[in-house]
């Protein structure tokens, strides 16, 4: 049995039923890392939120999301909040908005521990300091007592990762986790994520518009275009020998390093105009 199995997921929004995701199916095995690429508005984040059961009230969902055999679509808040933060967790793009500005970083991590493990405050504190050290914060005690605005972008994203990893989840969903970071910080955070996922044996659904980043983290990759998955396969296959016109265009535009400086860059429309099949 797959860890996560998504079948025929359809998501529309509002009374006008504006479609966001159409007929999406995929599965993820324990420890597997699956990348999800596509441009803004293609439905990547909506798919991730559906898996987490975090879609807003005005979303209409049909199809199935089974996590360890349990159905997430239509599940009660009680069932979902037992899963979230414990067995499946999420790292968001912008830690400044995802973290609570009025709580110290340590308390936010401790909250995740205590909600699920029910540990007493003293034990939780130790667990928090351990995980903060593990995600590479040089002075865990100081970071724990700091408010989010007192930390740098890279440090904040490490706090987010600590929250996502502290309960040893089976699935971590990362939604553009390094897009807001500087390249050198991004490189460190990605290396750390790689290590931590390995150590926890956690599977990962990794959302990004950056093909290079996905190729460094993931084994498998799916390409989304206007709510549908247009191509899926191993990273080597999809990024090395793309079959769908949209994927070919996406790969071509991303290979800035192959373009002669100053020359006209290839654009997606050179490969795929969106009309009919490629």
């Amino acid at each position, binding site marked *: 049995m797959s860890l996560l199995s998504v079948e025929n997921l359809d998501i529309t929004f509002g009374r006008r039923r504006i479609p966001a995701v159409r007929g999406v199916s995929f599965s993820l095995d324990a420890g597997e890392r699956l990348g999800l690429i596509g*441009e*803004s508005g293609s439905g990547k984040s909506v798919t991730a939120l559906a898996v987490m059961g975090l879609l807003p009230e005005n979303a209409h969902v049909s199809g199935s999301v089974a996590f360890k055999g349990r159905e997430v679509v239509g599940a009660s808040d009680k069932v979902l909040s037992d899963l979230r933060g414990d067995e499946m967790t999420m790292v968001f793009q912008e830690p400044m908005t995802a973290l609570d500005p009025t709580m110290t970083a340590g308390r936010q991590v401790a909250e995740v521990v205590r909600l699920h493990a029910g540990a007493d405050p003293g034990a939780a504190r130790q667990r928090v300091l351990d995980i903060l050290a593990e995600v590479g914060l040089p002075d865990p005690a100081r970071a724990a007592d700091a408010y989010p605005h007192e930390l740098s*972008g890279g440090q904040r994203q490490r706090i987010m990762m600590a929250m996502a990893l502290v309960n040893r989840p089976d699935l971590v969903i990362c939604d553009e986790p390094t897009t807001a970071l*500087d*390249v*050198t*910080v*991004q*490189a460190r955070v*990605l290396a750390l994520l790689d290590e931590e996922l390995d150590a926890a044996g956690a599977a990962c659904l990794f959302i990004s*518009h*950056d*093909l*290079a*980043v996905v*190729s*460094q983290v993931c084994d498998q990759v799916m390409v989304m275009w206007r709510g549908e998955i247009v191509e899926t396969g191993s*990273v*080597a296959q999809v*990024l*090395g020998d793309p079959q769908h016109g949209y994927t070919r*265009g*996406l*790969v071509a*535009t*991303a*290979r*800035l*390093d192959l*373009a002669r*400086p*100053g020359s*006209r*860059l*290839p*654009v*997606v429309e050179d490969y795929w105009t969106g009309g009919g099949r490629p």
Partner: protein
Amino acid sequence: MSPTYRLDSVNRVYGNARSRVHAVADATFDVLDGQRLGIVGESGSGKSTLIRMMAALDRPSSGQLLFRGRDISHLPEKDLGDLRSSVQMVFQDPRSSLNPRMKVGDIITEPLRSPLLRQRADVPTDRTERLREVMDQVGLPFSLRNRYPHEFSGGQRQRIAIARALSPKPDVLIADEPVSALDVSVRAHVLNLLLDLVGEYGLTMLFVSHDLTVVRHVCDSVIVMHRGRIVEHGPIEEVYNDPRDDYTRTLLAAVPKIRV
């Protein structure tokens, strides 16, 4: 002929006696007419402070900053007409740099209504005609001039910002991370547009980015900044292929590459 810009030991220090931040330290370089200079560095490296001083949106704490031979570091606003009309900027996030309450036609022609700019002889006076021209140059249909920014996609909004920068016929274009907030597929379109325009009008360009690969594509030379200091300066191919400074090497190594 004097260079477009000449910077001599330009410093910018923020803060007070207790805590001082040296945002830009000892910047010394020239920008020649028609040069396409990339300015690369991470958040907090001082690159935005540097270009803000070059656009006279901020003033140096010390040092000389010459624009076309004239020291602008302490010029009052009323004497900045030459610079204001010749230097235009494009910012990173067109969502916040375009006024949401203005129609795009008014946004694009706003520089033409500035009294500082109208001092110059060659500033276009027929605003409707100029609007038609620049919208055409950036690939936006003239018929969309009465729409508001939120009705456009991110890539189109950046085209609006570029059209606004072009409308007073500037000589210098300062672009501050103009493609960082855009999808890769949109990035290619905007870079192609910038290169076309810079080539066609012989613009001098300052292009700020954290991404050396993007800078390599659009610039002929580059400055690498680290903690307020210029750590490397040279022709782009030299710096890209044979970086001298350790920090430049770190920066290049950190750029993610597609691994297949």
